[in-house]
């Protein structure tokens, strides 16, 4: 009994010694990497000296090799877990490196946003067409039977406007500068339109069917409202009231619908990719477009909240609305920033 015990201890000791010395020799490197990572994760890399910056990948590779050795030879679970977490942090830092947020934002406005919108041109045409069909249908329905108005437009949004309202009342809605109702209504409309835009995008993945319906229905609401004013001879005036922010806003909603349709059609017809990959692929283009849409809606909201109440001349309203539309179209479809290097 005595002999195997001592034999064991001796052989065990040798292994223990070599593993302990492995840890002793490498430990300083691990600690150095840990300290460097803690610093670069908190502050910008330029706070590191050149030497430290160059040592980072070297230390990371040494940690990785330590991890391989530890996994193969050591049974200290805490040590392996520590090295795994250290290596993962290093990996994310070194290989997760990408352009800074500032550079990304500049790229977005110069290149990515117009490119994404251009990429969606087919869907944009379809969604604009749907909106116009909706406007036509809405106007026709209300013209044929005015009860349709209540069915199409929720009473909260109508705010007393309707086929039975007097022309003076309707005119007052368009030109009264600062009335409490309108600014509250503008806020409501803004959230409403943001919701419509987001819904049009989000519902896209149900094979684009809800998006199509939403675009049609949104057009219907516009058409119904328009018909009421048109019947009272206020069509041009309503056009001006809507145009000042509407060109931006409706264009944004159409683009949101287009982005939703892109996702829906890609999921329905993924082509050679798997459905999941096709969705992810379309999702990236559509998401870029959607960020742009939210910027457009912000502009629309500002125009609506400020411009519509202060600018009351029809000509100016049309000019601002038309100008904004020309600006967007020029920006999306005509303007091409040359990326440094490639086209």
């Amino acid at each position, binding site marked *: 009994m005595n002999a195997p*015990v001592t034999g064991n201890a001796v052989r065990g000791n040798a292994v223990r010694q070599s593993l302990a010395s492995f840890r002793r020799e490498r430990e300083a490197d691990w600690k150095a990497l840990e300290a460097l990572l803690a610093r670069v994760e908190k502050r910008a890399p330029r706070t590191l000296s050149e030497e430290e910056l160059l040592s980072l990948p070297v230390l990371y590779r040494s940690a990785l090799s330590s991890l391989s050795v530890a996994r193969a030879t050591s049974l200290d679970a805490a040590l392996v877990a520590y090295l795994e977490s250290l290596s993962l942090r290093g990996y994310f830092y070194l290989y997760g490196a990408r352009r800074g947020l500032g550079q990304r934002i500049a790229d977005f406005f110069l290149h990515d946003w117009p490119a994404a919108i251009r990429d969606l041109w087919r869907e944009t045409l379809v969604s604009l067409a749907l909106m116009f069909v909706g406007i036509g249908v809405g106007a026709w329905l209300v013209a044929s039977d005015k009860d349709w108005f209540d069915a199409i437009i929720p009473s909260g949004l109508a705010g007393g406007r309707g086929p039975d309202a007097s022309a003076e009342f309707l005119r007052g809605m368009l030109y009264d500068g600062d009335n409490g109702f309108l600014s509250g209504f503008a806020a409501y409309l803004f959230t409403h339109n943001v919701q419509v835009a987001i819904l049009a995008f989000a519902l896209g993945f149900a094979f684009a069917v809800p998006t199509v319906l939403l675009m049609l229905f949104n057009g219907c609401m516009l058409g119904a409202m328009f018909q009421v004013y048109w019947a009272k001879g206020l069509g041009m005036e309503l056009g001006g009231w809507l145009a000042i922010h509407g060109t931006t806003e409706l264009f944004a909603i159409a683009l949101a619908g287009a982005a939703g349709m892109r996702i829906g059609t890609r999921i329905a017809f993924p082509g050679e990719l798997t459905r999941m990959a096709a969705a992810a692929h379309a999702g990236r283009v559509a*998401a870029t477009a959607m960020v742009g849409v939210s910027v457009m809606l912000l502009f629309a909201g500002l125009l609506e909240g400020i411009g519509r109440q202060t600018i009351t001349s029809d000509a100016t309203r049309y000019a601002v609305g038309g100008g904004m539309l020309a600006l967007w179209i020029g920006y999306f479809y005509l303007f091409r920033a040359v990326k440094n290097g490639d086209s």
Partner: protein
Amino acid sequence: MATARRPALATIRPLITPEGVDLRIKLADAGTRAAAFLLDVVFIATAAVVITIVALFGLRGLGTGELQPLFVVWIILIFFLRNVYFIAFEAGRRAATPGKRIVGIRVASRNGAGLSVDQVIARNLMREIEVFLPLSIIAARGGTGVADTLTTIFGLVWALLFSLFPLFNRDRMRIGDLLAGTWVVEAPKRTLMEDLSARQQDPVAKAFQFSQVQLDAYGIAELHKLEEVLRRDDYFAQKAVAETIGRKIGMKIEPIDSKAFLTAYYGELRAHLERKLLLGNRKADKHDR
């Protein structure tokens, strides 16, 4: 692999670095993510309340009575606040919001490449749709007094459906993760702990001697459990474990010596198993030969 460790494996995914090492990332579980999200919501709500109070007092100071036109600006501001919060933090160096940092998780790209800002934007815009949109519709309806039961139920079901989506796929992805090609992984900051086999210099521990047969009683799975018990340093757990091991290898352990015995046995067992490992024999658990 031992049966006891199998459930943990379900959430481990390979991540091969360009150097050829598999880092075996662990996906964050749904509870952790929910906790992180709730923390973030608390932070955002606090910021929103502070901003609102400051703005209200500021405006009162300026003598502006009419607040309604500013309501639009306020809505836009809150919308941007929460989106900028998520996007800016997740696009940052640690790819995690403060809430995620606290619970030790982060966002990563599913294909192993660097996480791009576009992915971060896509996954966070979808969150807008998954959670904030239905809730804000309910809130808006409630505010104008036209919230009916049906819309409320619809909104809640919608939010619930999307929130529970991660439970119904293997990779614990939200719809936003799915579209952006991301997932959320555990990224804990661990500190290097002491090597337990260095404790063997303890004089009481040194007195214990084990034979080949006694060391063959257990495998790697049991060794790791033993390591956990030793690191936790709970007297009663150690006493129970020491008794069990003593019975198995035929040794009588005084309760007072439990810790010393376990330390000694851990050291010897680890050295024994590591030596076997070097010779190419990985004894996974006690049933393994």
